[in-house]
């Protein structure tokens, strides 16, 4: 089989995934799109492994790794999406803009104000521990 077929298929898969990541609103669909992109990469890995006749089959081994990590990642990602959905009642990525730069005057966060509190508590704990 000519290398062009898997390569073109991988490009198509990757572009579908990319479109999904950039354009879909639902967080779960975005995750699925990420999986598509990963699998496009996997396809490339296997195809080039064969084409290069690699005796160690590094491409195939790396594919196994990628699949494993993708499984773990999707587990974590779905858990986060689930929690976000429970918390906000929505998994619409357009509305999840908590990382945006807050507008209006900046409130300086002095490190002293936050650090002052825990220190006595730690002392209390130490005192209790020694008592």
């Amino acid at each position, binding site marked *: 089989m000519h290398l062009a077929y898997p390569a073109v298929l991988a490009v198509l898969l990757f572009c579908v995934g990319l479109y999904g990541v*950039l354009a879909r609103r639902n967080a779960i669909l975005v995750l699925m799109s990420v999986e598509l992109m990963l699998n496009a990469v996997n396809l490339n890995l296997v195809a080039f492994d064969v084409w290069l006749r690699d005796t160690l089959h590094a491409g195939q081994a790396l594919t196994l790794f990628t699949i494993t990590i993708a499984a773990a990642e999707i587990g974590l990602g779905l858990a986060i999406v689930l929690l976000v959905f429970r918390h906000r009642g929505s998994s619409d990525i357009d509305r999840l803009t*908590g*990382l945006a730069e807050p507008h209006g005057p900046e409130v300086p966060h002095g490190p002293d104000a936050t650090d002052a509190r825990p220190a006595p508590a730690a002392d209390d704990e130490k005192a209790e521990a020694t008592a």
Partner: protein
Amino acid sequence: MTLIALAALVPLLPFLAAAAGLLLGGRAPGFVRPLAVLPVATSFVLAAVVAARQGTGAPTDGAHRLTVTGSVPIDVALHLDGFSVLVAVLVGLVATCVQLYSVAYLRDDPRYPSYAALVSLFTSAMLLVVYTGDLMVLLVGWEVMGICSYFLVGHYWETETARAASIKAFLVTKLGDVPFLIGVFALASDAHTFRITGILDAASHGQLHHPTVVALLLLAGVAGKSAQFPLHTWLPDAMAGPTPVSALIHAATMVAAGIYLVARLLPVFTASAAALAVLAATAAVTMVGSALAALAQDDIKRVLAYSTIGQLGYMAGALAVGDRDAAVFHLLSHGAFKALLFLGAGVVIHAAGTNSLTAMSRMGSLGKRVPDAMWTMGLALAALAALPPLSGFFSKESVLRAAEHASSGDTAHVPSAVGWTVLVAGLTAALLTAGYATRLFLLAFRGSGPDVADHGRQPVVMTTVLWVLAVPTLAFGGLTYRELPDWFGGAPLGPTLLTSVLGTGLALVGVLITYGAWSATTATRGSVPVGAVVAADPDAEPALIEIEAVATHEEIYGDIAAADDPGDPGRLLLGPLHPLAAHGFRLDAVYSALFVRPVLAAANLVRFLDREVIETYVRAAGGTPRLLGAAVRRAQNGNVQTYLSALLAGAVVLAVLVAVGG
């Protein structure tokens, strides 16, 4: 114990006392007074023992090289000869008296521990200067004295006067010390040693390449330290410090260090006739000018300060005519009676509640309140005026004799013009000195008017110290002028007929003229009351009364130095010169116009440049990234997909660039 080890102990003891006093003073108040007095007294005794053992023998040298210091070695060296041991005894005596006196004078002062420690440190530094045989070690003591003087003049740093005076004293003496340091280096590079004996060897063999330059550089430091024209202006202002400090540092010892140094290095100076001429001119201007200024001062301590400047001028004059024996002789006797005068002035200020002679001249019975001060100060003033048979007479005559000797061209290396300058200035100053001494005595102790408030008996320690110092004032000169040449290894110091008749005659004339002027103005004094006396608590410690008197003098009399008193005999004698003399011939104003204002203007310019020009760049450097940041911040809208799109676009652009470029 060897003589050198004994001599090393002399400066070491007060130094240890100072260190202990500074460390423990706050924690163990009970030890402060013994720690202040006993080590200094012990080192006085040791200095006397050293003097007795050294005697008239050949100079004793001891040196220890602590470490290798490159090209020119620096040794911790002691050099004991007649000059150093006798000056050390004087320093020990005055320091002991001052420490004793301070115990009573500053009895309630909260800063007494640090004060006493600094006085000890000062004593130690002065003894080091006196004993040392190495110019670098001498410089260490020299600078330690300077910083001690700064701290002690500023002892009452709550008052503006004291703060300004301490800074002025420090800066003016430093102005002289910088050329001095360069001079020391130049001297050492010619002689290849810092040891004084080595330098004197080099000087006598003509190995100094630029004796005039070196001597003039050294003279700058000497003029600063010994308050010679034109660097004398700090000394009258330094009277803002406590009286014992004025007695120790600004009358008897530190200001004499410059004279002592020239005496030690005299061959370097005699190698250059120009340096001697400059020294003589400086001394002459100083003698006459300071005596005129002293005649116009109102503050009793400023009179004494100007008189110190004048007497140092005598010593400088003696050095200019190449007679260091006479200079050190006058240094010794002057140290004793001037310390006595200052300590007596402290008692008088305490009893009168003011430091103003104008106010004292309106007080009856001040002399009866403090009889000890009156008698001892009378003796010391007579010594200052060089009336026989007091010690000041013999020492001053030795100076005049040396000048007369040089004026006839009999002294090697010394031009006769130098001798004439010193002789004429010395005789003029003798007349004026007698005048202001008489004026001081009459105004302070022979006033008439309402009785001064009774402040009770003066502390016994203070009056005892006065009598102790009265002994050398009375007898030192007469008893020792025959012995001293053996110690100094020089020419006889006894008075000659011509100069003693001239000097004493002029002094008597001065006394009589001033007495006449004083009698003539008695009526005026009676009719013009100037009754401003500080209302300090009579039971307060003496120092408090003094600080208040100094601080309020300007607002009561309108000036720190002078008072507007038509009944002042000095005003009658000086005539139109009086306002000038009262302000030290406006030298301060000249310096202010020449140096202080340009420096302040330059500082303002620098501040302007810093604030308005340099800071603009700094602000721009900070502001530009902030503006850029604000622009970039708008892109951060929280939508992850937008970020990724931008990332993709960037990656594509890069890839295209690489593809096209590569």
